[in-house]
């Protein structure tokens, strides 16, 4: 199960709508080992494409160094599908390189840049195997 604050959920959704029809991407970092997404880090889609996303390789190195310095890890890795459903594609599965992360997919196929229906789903992708998980939205994580 992915537990996520309303604020972070809305930040991902807003990024996806803003970048539509291109795919939006980014991560939510959290303390290593905590499984708690805390810090929203939107990334540039270096592919600037409606059917592909990719972190720029220089951005990727800086991101991981920053995570290391802060003793964080990518708890959530998110991206949008802008014409198809919010389910990992074969490409998504073949690239999935963080077995500990929650892979969040947002579909903006219906809402485009505007308010309106969207789909927000979360998956584990481990050794090529996709498992959907429940997304629980909370006001705060509490103690």
């Amino acid at each position, binding site marked *: 199960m992915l537990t996520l604050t309303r604020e972070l959920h809305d930040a991902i959704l807003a990024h996806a709508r803003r970048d539509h029809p291109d*795919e939006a*991407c980014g*991560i939510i970092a959290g303390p290593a080992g905590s499984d708690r997404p805390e810090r929203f880090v939107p*990334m540039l889609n270096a*592919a600037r*494409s*409606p*059917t*592909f*996303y*990719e*972190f720029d*390789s*220089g951005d*990727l*190195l800086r991101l*991981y160094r920053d995570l290391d310095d802060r003793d964080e*890890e990518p708890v959530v*890795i998110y*991206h949008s*599908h*802008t*014409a*198809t459903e919010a389910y*990992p*594609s074969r*490409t*998504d599965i*073949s*690239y*999935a*390189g*963080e*077995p*500990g992360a929650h892979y969040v997919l947002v579909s903006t196929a219906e809402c485009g840049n505007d308010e309106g229906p969207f789909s927000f789903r979360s998956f584990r992708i481990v050794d090529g195997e996709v498992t959907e998980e429940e997304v629980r939205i909370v006001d705060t994580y509490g103690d």
Partner: protein
Amino acid sequence: MAIEVRIPTILRTYTDGAKAVTGAGATLAELITDLDSRHPGIRARLVEENGELRRFVNVYLNDEDVRFLKGSATELTDGDQVTILPAVAGGAR
């Protein structure tokens, strides 16, 4: 010649959980072969059968993506740091 190699989470099964290991080699290809001698299986995760780097991994020499250098033929010097990261990519297609 000692090169520090930073290992991403997904490949730490090959390094007994170590985040960094030390290797040797005059080129990246030699370094990867050297790593594989102590961490069997890691090479196949990094390079294709033809020796080219897999597109699912990014390899950096110090701050530079080796794709912008000479790929697996990139020369290494004592004290260099090599960082391996899984590419973060995907898409609807």
